[in-house]
């Protein structure tokens, strides 16, 4: 399908007015403050210059077609020193009370001086906010007890200069319209599918990071997604919804129309089947998570809890802070988070990048090696024993970067075939004297709570799961279940991994906003996992049959 054209333009000879403006205002500001009381010791500019396309169709018609561009500046000013600065948490206060970050839209196609004027407005505000925060930090330090983790607030970084190409993706949405209309008609064909849509999304983003340490970066990011979803309201009020998608960096890697047509038929048929399926029931026992589901499981159970900054936040659970060197998983299993990996299991990975949003080079972070916990995802916020960033400082625009996952990759040195895993599942069922267990095929996402007051628990939102009988009866599709649990128990119950790594590409939301990432994992067999019912809907299905050609269907 050559409906899109991608080209990475060579760096133009003429200067980039945005870089000129950012350089000029950074120099002007730091020079003006030099030697002054409460001067910022660090100032950074992060700009996202983004073109977006979105085309959506439903019921055989185009619903929405839009393209646009935006340019957003994020300013971060720090007052104090690397050891203790204005971003230091204030004991007894929510971080929401502190203005640590300033975001602002910048004009596009304007002169560098016009851009610089907009940068100046945001810089002034950011420095004022940092100075106010610094005063409060100093007072707080005098009146409160010492920090549990005395690590510095910020780690220095040697300057890096890497002015890469700008993202230059061109998407002809009108050329895609016939395909999406046909797909959406196919998806909506069954009378029991109450709603559905097919979408194409594309982003071409050029990211800039400049800071007062001398770092100057420009790097492209390109992302496209073709997706389809269908939903139906079951007679008991529950809403069943399936979503299938593919994320790529290159339009040439999008599936062809025949493949997409097959997807549409499968998603529609699966939605109808799910509507007819029995609702699952609360359960605890063996569960086999297929690759995508296993990836999300690892993301929610382990990933968020090893984000470095959480280890020195005194409201966090610190589940793994003191577990470095301890055995968490079978010795055959290792987990890394590596933003530098572009592809795995034949799929482009969402979490690929070369530099993070603090200007640190992306590096693989070893989280679990041969089953032993080794370390954390690090931004430029050091923690005890981990002084440097490993390139995981990430944020969406308008947010301050913190340590986040990128490409979380699970590997095994003892891969089991699907048949072996099913046999092992059946054996485990017999060992636990259970009539049936579960296989989870598809996942709609998940969430986890990592703090101290609320249960330190996770929820992985299953969308397509099977009841599997120990005596070999045919599997039965079930609906309406979520996988829940607590992290240490869940990890200690991992028994085996498959030979079939799959990629779950998605976007993860946390305090630094929504960032693209990937979870790569083979199937995981869990000895014991708890299942709870999904929320039930209260609304009845539509009262009239849905409109159809020649009358109601």
């Amino acid at each position, binding site marked *: 399908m050559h409906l899109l054209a991608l080209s990475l333009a060579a760096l133009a000879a003429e200067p980039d007015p945005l870089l000129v403006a950012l350089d*000029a*205002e950074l120099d*002007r*500001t730091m020079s*003006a*403050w030099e030697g002054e009381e409460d001067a910022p010791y660090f100032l950074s500019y992060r700009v996202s210059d983004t073109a977006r396309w979105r085309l959506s*169709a*439903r*019921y*055989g*018609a*185009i*619903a*929405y*077609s*839009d393209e*646009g*561009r*935006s*340019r957003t500046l994020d300013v971060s000013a720090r007052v104090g020193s690397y050891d203790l600065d204005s971003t230091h948490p204030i004991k007894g206060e929510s971080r929401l009370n502190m203005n640590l970050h300033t975001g602002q*839209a*910048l*004009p*596009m*196609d*304007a*002169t560098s*001086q*016009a*851009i*610089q*004027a*907009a940068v*100046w*407005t945001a810089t*002034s505000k950011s*420095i*004022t906010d940092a100075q106010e925060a610094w005063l409060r930090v100093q007072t707080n330090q005098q009146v409160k007890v010492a920090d549990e983790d005395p690590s510095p607030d910020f780690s220095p970084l040697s300057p890096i200069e890497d002015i890469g190409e700008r993202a230059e993706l061109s998407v002809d949405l009108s050329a895609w319209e016939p395909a999406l*209309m046909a797909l959406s008609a196919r998806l*909506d064909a069954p009378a029991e599918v*109450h*709603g559905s849509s097919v979408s194409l999304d594309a982003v071409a983003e050029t990211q800039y990071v400049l800071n007062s340490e001398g770092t100057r970066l420009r790097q492209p990011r390109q992302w496209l997604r073709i997706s389809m979803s269908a939903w139906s309201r079951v007679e008991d009020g529950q809403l069943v919804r399936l979503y299938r998608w593919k994320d790529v960096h290159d339009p040439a890697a999008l599936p062809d129309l025949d493949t997409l047509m097959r997807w549409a038929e499968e998603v529609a048929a699966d939605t109808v089947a799910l509507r007819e399926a029995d609702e699952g029931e609360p359960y605890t026992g063996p569960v086999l998570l297929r690759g995508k589901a296993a990836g999300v499981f690892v993301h929610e159970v382990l990933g968020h809890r090893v984000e470095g900054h959480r280890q020195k936040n005194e409201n966090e659970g610190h589940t793994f802070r003191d577990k470095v060197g301890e055995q968490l998983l079978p010795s055959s299993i290792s987990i890394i988070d590596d933003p530098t990996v572009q592809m795995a299991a034949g799929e482009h990975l969402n979490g690929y990048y070369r530099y993070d949003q603090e200007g640190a080079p992306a590096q693989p972070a070893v989280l679990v090696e041969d089953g032993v916990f080794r370390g954390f995802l690090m931004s430029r916020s050091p923690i005890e024993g981990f002084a440097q960033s490993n390139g995981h400082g990430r944020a969406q625009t308008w947010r301050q970067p913190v340590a986040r996952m990128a490409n979380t990759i699970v590997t095994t040195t003892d891969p089991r075939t699907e048949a072996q895993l099913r046999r092992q599942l059946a054996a485990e069922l017999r060992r636990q004297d259970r009539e049936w267990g579960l296989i989870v095929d598809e996942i709609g996402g998940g969430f986890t709570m990592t703090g101290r007051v609320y249960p330190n628990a996770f929820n992985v939102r299953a969308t397509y799961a099977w009841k599997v009988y120990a005596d070999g009866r045919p599997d039965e599709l079930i609906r309406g279940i979520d996988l829940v649990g607590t992290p240490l128990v869940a990890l200690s119950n991992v028994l085996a991994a498959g030979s079939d790594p799959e990629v779950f590409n998605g976007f993860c939301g946390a305090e630094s906003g929504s960032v693209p990432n990937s979870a790569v994992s083979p199937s995981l067999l869990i000895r014991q996992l708890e299942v709870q019912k999904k929320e039930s809907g209260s*609304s*009845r299905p*539509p*009262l*009239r049959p*849905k*409109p*159809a*050609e020649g009358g*109601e269907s």
Partner: protein
Amino acid sequence: MMLLTLLATAAAEDILVESLSAELQSNMDALRLEDAAEPYFISYLIYDVDNISITAQLGGLIDDDVSPSRQLGVGVRVGSAELDSANFDALGEGDGFSRRTLVRDDVALALQHDAWLVTDGAYKSAVENLSRKEALARRRIAVDETPDFAPGAPQQADLGSAERVDAAALRETARALSAIFLDYPEIDASTVYSGAEFGRRIMLDSTGTQIIEPTSEVAIRVVARAQAPDGATLVDEARWVVRTLADLPDAASMHAEVVALAERLGAWRVQDVAETEYIGPVLFEDGAAVDLFRHLLLPALEGTPAPESPPRGSRVVSFNAKGSSALGVRRRILPTGFSVFDDPTVDLSLPSAYRYDWEGEPAQRVELVADGIVRSHFSTRTPSDAVPASNGHGRGFPGGLIRGMAANTVIDVKRASSARQLHRQAMKLTGAYDNDHYLVVRRLSEPAIAGDDVGAMFSLGGDDGAALPAPIEVVRVYADGSEVPVRGLSFADAGLSVLRDITAAGEATTDTFLEPPPRSGYRGQMYGLSVTVTAPDVLIGELELVAGTDAAEKPPRLPSPLVERP
């Protein structure tokens, strides 16, 4: 010949209207829940328009969005006209009204699918809402005899669609106006918001109403902000709200107005700070006079009853009175000699003009105030004790109960004074307060552009809940006519009663602005429906103004880099 006939038929086909009319009728015929009330009235309000939204700063674009938009608002009423499911706010639980963005394309089945889902949901929420409303009615001793819905004759008209607005022209205008501020480094932030909405408004209902009316609106807001050396933040705008691009002033005039805005703000920065308080006569001139009536008079004439809501939270039941928030008829709102009327059809070149309102009712001229006494309200098919039927002033956005609001309102005075007479009268009044000057207010703050760092926008209101935004252009006027600008004032206790204290009126000013529909609040710079008000300058006998309490921040340490611009 046969082919030509077929083509002609195809061209005449209006798939959007025909498919949604058919779906509305199918729902009316068959949308039923066992043992529950049936729909007795279904309405569809469709905005079939194109939207342009362009934002510019310092000669560059911040945002540029041009897209078609088809919004369907569905209203389902169950029960009967005497007691139905509408206008009851069950705390966000749904009330029989809902909204959905329709597919862009003219594909009948897809349009019907969208309408099918949203009508199904609206009907179910209407059934639940009616039961809540009936339950509340049973607890009451007093019987509410005002019907919930007023009859209306089916209306049919196809007035076509508005002409396209050229996005490129609007883009260039925004870019050019925003570039003016490159020459004004003392203005620390400026933005040009420009937008257009054009196409048609379609009203369908189950009695057979089918109205298609063109709609077109072009709005440009140039907003600028400066900070005085004492830290006070000053924000003002230049604004145009017109029907088509051709109705905008020529480029030179707009340029001059934006230059005037920049220079005005620059001058205000270094003005004296006002006295801590002032009591005495105040003359409202030009835009401030229009805003005085806009913020105090118009809300007092919005006649659709406020929604009832269930008692909440405790066993102590306090019923919300079912009544309009409007000032009752036969009550004095203005001095003798003042009359107010509103006529949506008076000048069809205005963006606020229309022939049929948002419920499909014919627009009517309505005499709202006669000789200072309220005679009627802006009314819709949701009647009040005072006004039993629609007078064609139902306006709103798809998805909610349509409420009465102004369109083209004229405040008329029998005897207008000249500027010289107003000055003499003001000086005469000021003597009683031992002042050697009176105040003239020329501009009020604009609530829609309130943003960060602007401080309190509205002054304290009166006991009646009405409130007036703070003034931003105020001058002291002395006996010899000399003027001294001051800043930093806001009104104390400026409620509806201020209007009864008008002692004289002068020349009239007409202004068109964007106003949020009743009960929706301000939601950004370009949100609202256009309203035109013609109002005279007015002298208020006594008004109190106090110094603002803005917690000013220090100005930035560094000047704008534009200072160094060659």
